[in-house]
């Protein structure tokens, strides 16, 4: 079967030093995105387990699968989770979620947890849309901006490009730096123009790495334009799938002349993590603790 270069590695993780049975509040967040889905479980607000899998063509199924993966081999089950918040494109059909909150609010809250209260500007580069979010020290959204139609599809574009170059998606970042000098970026108008221009460069005999560098800098460039419209206030953090592509991240940092905070966890779980934190606040409200 032809190797699927675009298929990025799925993952799951469970904490070894927390036992959910000692937990008073068990909350969960499920983020069903256009390309990937994640589930996060918190025990009294501490990160207990998470999973990160591909979104299928049926969002309720994807939500259930990714929730089950986060509970696998922990003994936990759906009924033991006090409150679940759904987010992402598929947020309205996460069958077991009690509340749906947008991924913008969730990414801000999740980033606040992952990076601390100094983070003020968050860039979430998802499969379909890019979001530039401003938040306060508690992780509440104060302003946000999303890409215009022509600039959609950054995440999806990366997958298509991995396929085109027959380069595994997780190696694209590293390879894009194996060039002697940084080439001109391809057009950043839209993903389709960028790809057809890249194909032209390949045909002209450019090495794969050089074309990767040109494509990555075009993608970085597009996102920096969005960030500059909302004005980056420090500290700055990047969440979402493309945060793992150093080829794009490092070029964003170079153009902004601002270093993004170091990722402590899988950057793709920020949305689900924010959802789980909101779930905790909501269950505390129900119990009158807030």
């Amino acid at each position, binding site marked *: 079967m032809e190797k699927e270069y675009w298929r990025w590695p799925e993952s799951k993780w469970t904490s070894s030093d927390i036992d959910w049975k000692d937990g008073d509040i068990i909350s969960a967040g499920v983020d069903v995105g256009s390309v990937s889905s994640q589930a996060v479980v918190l025990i009294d607000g501490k990160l207990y387990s998470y999973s990160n899998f591909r979104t299928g063509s049926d969002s309720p199924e994807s939500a259930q699968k990714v929730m089950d993966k986060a509970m696998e081999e922990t003994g936990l089950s759906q009924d033991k989770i006090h409150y679940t918040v759904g987010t992402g494109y*598929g947020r309205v059909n996460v069958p077991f979620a009690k509340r749906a909150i947008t991924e913008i609010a969730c990414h801000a809250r999740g980033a606040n947890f992952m990076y601390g209260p100094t983070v003020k500007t968050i860039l979430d580069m998802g499969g379909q849309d890019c979001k530039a979010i401003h938040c306060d020290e508690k992780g509440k959204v104060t302003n946000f901006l999303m890409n215009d139609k022509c600039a959609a599809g950054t995440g999806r574009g990366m997958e298509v490009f991995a396929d085109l170059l027959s380069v595994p998606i997780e190696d694209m970042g590293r390879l894009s730096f194996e060039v002697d000098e940084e080439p001109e970026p391809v057009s950043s108008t839209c993903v389709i123009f960028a790809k057809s221009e890249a194909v032209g460069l390949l045909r002209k005999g450019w090495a794969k790495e050089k074309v990767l560098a040109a494509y990555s800098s075009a993608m970085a460039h597009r996102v920096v334009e969005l960030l500059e419209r909302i004005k980056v206030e420090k500290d700055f953090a990047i969440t979402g799938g493309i945060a793992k592509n150093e080829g794009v991240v490092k070029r964003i940092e170079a153009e902004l002349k601002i270093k993004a905070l170091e990722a402590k966890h899988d950057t793709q779980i920020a949305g689900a993590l924010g959802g789980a934190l909101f779930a905790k606040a909501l269950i505390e409200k129900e119990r009158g603790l807030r």
Partner: protein
Amino acid sequence: MNVVGIDCGAKYVKALVLEDDKIKAKSSVLSGFDQKAAAQEALDKVLEQASLKKEDIAYITATGAGKEEAVFAQGTITEVGANAKAVNILFPSVRTVIDVGAEEGRSIKINEKGKVVDFAINEKCAAGAGTFTETMARALEVKLEEMGALSLKSQKSVPMNAQCAVFAESEVVSLIHAKHAKQDIVRAVHDAIADRIASMTRKIGIEKDVALVGGVARNIGFVDSLKRDLKQELFIPEEPEYSCALGAAFAAAEKAKGG
């Protein structure tokens, strides 16, 4: 007399040997990033298959975006000219040729002798018709070859933006999450591409009969959508993805006969 037509396309290099207007051998090689090598490999393979040597070949004509890379070819012809020649010989009654490849869509108006009277190529924003089906197949977890059959199962037509693949894709994501049935979404994808191709073809006018060539013609779902949109029967060669190479071979034959 043996001639060779070679189509250096975006994804594949396809070559074929023509012996007195009959296809004797065919080869297809992944273009990869060294088009020169790929063109040479396609030529060697097709000659080997036809058990011929290069000297037995009277004339070689190259076409496709990478036609300059086929350094061994004596002549070149554009995809527009090649498709016109191929379809004129395969289906003499055809006056409108539609070619949908991975990256580009083209509509060509020809006269009874196969001469190109007018042509239109997809607008900038409507590029990537072919690859769009691939991306959507992946999003819907459907094998590319099954997209066509699945689309025919749907009776519903879900309206979707037909101007650009990125807009259409963002709407497919919404359709997935609005829990539309998979076959209805697949049909919406084919209808959207058919809409764009029909829209472009109207620029040169839809004149009976109409032929469809290019790799995407293998997708029966897309073919059905295009028929519905144009309200026309479509003449499709058995191997639509070879029409460009075949047209180049016919051009080579003409040149060989001193045309």
